[in-house]
């Protein structure tokens, strides 16, 4: 599901913390995500 409508999308590793524990997933965020 590669987003289109922007100059720059970046994949980012995102940390998820639930009551059962912590894990990470890869998501997209629009560019300039410093």
């Amino acid at each position: 599901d590669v987003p289109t409508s922007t100059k720059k999308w970046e994949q980012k590793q995102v940390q998820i913390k639930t009551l059962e524990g912590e894990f990470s997933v890869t998501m997209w965020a629009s560019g300039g995500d410093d």
Partner: protein
Amino acid sequence: TVTSRPGGVKGFDWGPYLSSTSSDAASVSCFKHCPMSDNWLNITVGMKVEIQNHECDLPEHAYWIATVIKIAGYKSLMRFEGFGNDTSYDFWMNLCTQDVHPVGWCATIGKPLVPPKSIQHKYLDWKEYLVKRLTGSRTLPSNFYNKVVESISNHRFKKGVNVEVVDKMCVSAMRVATVDEVIGGRLRLQYVDSKEENDDFWCHMRSPLVHPITWSQRSGHKLHAIQEYKNECLNKIITENYHPTDAVPDMFHKVKEPMGDLKFQVGMKLEAIDPLNLSAICVATVMKVLKNNYLMIGIDGSMAQNGSDWFCYHTSSPCIFPVGFCEINGLDLTPPRGYKGQFKWFEYLKQSKSTAAPVKLFDKEIPKHGFKPSHKVEAVDLMEPRLICVATVSKVVGRLLRIHFDGWENEYDQWVDSESPDLYPAGWCEVMNYGLEGPRVKVEPP
């Protein structure tokens, strides 16, 4: 709903209204003068965010992941993960407030994500469910709210800056005013020579009604000011030495200068939005040609003898039109007051021995604005500019929009250019914490 502070100061909440009227709001990208307009196309349906979960027993704040179901201006309809296609728990949020976070934000502050009570037992292993739902989907950039704050801040106009602005009591004259407050680029101006306490006037810093110091004398526009001020301006025009509190030309939006040597002449006829009745496009005349491509326009049939109701338009203004514009676009043209019979330009020009301003003189560019009829917006009532009201785009004619104020009769509609700085996306007032006038509710007599 789970939103905590709907609708800014006045409390009007767009969410239920958009749902109950099943209407759409104009996209933020339609409003070039508004925060986040440039990158708003990156905000899409299906995006995931983290939002406070009010349906939870934990003592401290808990959050959960929500999906953007619908976008309406800055507002967004949200559904918490786990509700599938069940719409009954959907809720509205403003994407540009501190209540919405990118996915991953909770982990950075050590807070757990906790599903709402009503679905907490729906999945034995929420991790597996979330990995499947989140992998490859989109979220906000981590610095999204910083970008919002940055794009709201304006470094040009501050409290105490002096400007020249149209005199609200005599539209053919300018007056000196001081910025008292700035909200989202909207200036609350106080006339410097005013005797009354709150003789203020609201207008946006990009409005054609406001100009830098010395503008009136540079263009030849009538100016209501003390002689001392006028002398100071003449000196500033020569020396280009401004006072630190003076608004200077580079603080203002550049106006498009006309090409070619054909010029407007006094006496030329045209069609113009009546500045004193914005729902009308009228038969009008060029009454005076000022410098720097500004014109004083009078509305035929209702001009005061002394020209006190002439109004200044730039030659590139999108509020003046060639003769025949209304007819071509199927719009009502208001004839001169007292005109007998069916108005026809051909006969009127003959009777008045006047000529129509050549079509070539008018700016015919139509930007891709994106507005459509039925789009909801927040619109300034230009007859009472401190008020921002819930409104609807009722008609689109090229770049011209007819704005209807919800709950009011059509006679209160206002013709506005699509790039007018007096139009805002749904949710703008909430972001700025400015009161939004909801639709007028008619009280039926018993």
